[in-house]
């Protein structure tokens, strides 16, 4: 699903990583383990095409990332950064506004489906009528997950998604993702992720 070949990245004189290679198969769950400042989040950004490595190749779904196919590639990936923030509006309106983007037009807003997902994520139904600014960190994360699922993303890039949650929620979210069939790359220091079906990648 994702192939990274000999990529190098440095910021100015500071080398972040060199000759990093990594292959991730479809459906695999991978946790990245490296000291801070060693480019874990940067690697996720490189896969999203938000950051260009100094050299090396990155392939997603058999395609070399390029300006031409980047939209197509991003449409396969759910990117959940640490502290996501939503524009100020009702949660339901926000979900609808995401579905109104040109590239998401084929997906319609089905209230039942959304409510089922809310339940699966342990969120009350009335969260939809709440204002995005009144959501807690954990609620925001789960709304983010819900939206990415509505968008049928095949790959999930999780950047410290559990770090701001309480321990109960940490366990719940980690289980939730590890049960999914999608390909998942995790950046986290939380040991709730360390389960059997998880591959640890270190550098």
């Amino acid at each position, binding site marked *: 699903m994702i192939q990274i070949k000999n990529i190098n990245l440095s910021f100015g004189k500071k080398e972040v990583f060199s000759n990093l290679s990594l292959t991730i198969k479809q459906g695999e769950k991978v946790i990245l383990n490296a000291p801070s400042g060693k480019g874990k989040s940067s690697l996720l950004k490189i896969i999203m095409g938000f950051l260009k490595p100094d050299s090396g190749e990155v392939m997603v779904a058999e395609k070399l990332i390029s300006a031409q196919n980047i939209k197509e590639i991003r449409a396969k990936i759910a*990117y959940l950064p640490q502290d996501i923030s939503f524009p100020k509006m009702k949660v339901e309106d926000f979900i609808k506004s995401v579905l109104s983007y040109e590239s998401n037009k084929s997906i319609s807003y089905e209230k039942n489906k959304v409510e089922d997902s809310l339940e699966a994520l342990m969120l009350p139904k009335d969260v939809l009528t709440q204002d995005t600014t009144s959501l807690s960190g954990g609620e925001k994360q789960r709304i983010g997950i819900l939206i990415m699922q509505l968008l049928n993303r095949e790959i999930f890039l999780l950047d410290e998604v559990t770090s701001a949650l309480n321990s109960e929620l940490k366990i719940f979210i980690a289980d939730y993702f590890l049960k999914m069939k999608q390909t998942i790359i995790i950046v986290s220091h939380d040991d709730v992720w360390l389960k059997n079906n998880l591959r640890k990648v270190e550098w």
Partner: protein
Amino acid sequence: MGAKDLSLYSMLFAYLLLLVPVGILYAMKVKLVKESFFSILRMSIQLGLVGVYLKYIFEWDNIWLNIAWLLVMIIVSTFSIIDSNGVCKRVFFLPIVGALAISLFFNISYFNYFIVNISDIFNAKYLIPISGMLLGNSLKGNIIATNTFFDYFRNREKEYFFTLSLGASRQEALKPIVRESMKRSLKPTLASIATIGLVSLPGMMTGQILGGSVPMTAIKYQIAVMIAIFSTMAISIFLVILFLKKVSFNKFDVLKKYIFIKGEN
């Protein structure tokens, strides 16, 4: 008939008035004494030069010279906008000059032709001072708008990335940022428009009244000028942001990092 000229003695008295505020600053040990003298000195030199320059501009009243003077004002404003953001001059010079020029030339032509109703729209007496007011106010607005835009990318780029990852196109992802920039830059002007006359008599009116116009004429000019200022601001901010959006991003829809320059320069 114009305002009474000020003699050298008058000017001496004007500068003498400085002693009071400077005396207060000195007594209170507010460290602005040097700066006060410097600012007043700088203003005096600048205005002195402009005075000489304008004397000839009005005397010759040559279309090309007048337009050249507008271009100088536009270029100075452009540098001031670029410097306030600490971004790359090479990338932003032409787009900003273009945006300011389009909105200024449209508004000043409209103002002179339809409102003042003069056939020679490049007449220095109208062109230069009105353009100065339109551009001066647009400058403030554009500084706020571009600062809002670039600060967003300095501090909250993650949000933009997240929006892109939700399937938004660059245009769709930038829309809320553009809206915020426009809102924040136009709001102060709208607020000051709403209080004009109650708190302060604007400079243009004061000038006209001193120059011998009847108050009603001065007021009509003032109303027209405020609307033109608002129009020039809105159009120039819209265009500046539009052009920024065009030149600031790479093919991956990511803000080009080299546009931020470190330190001064």
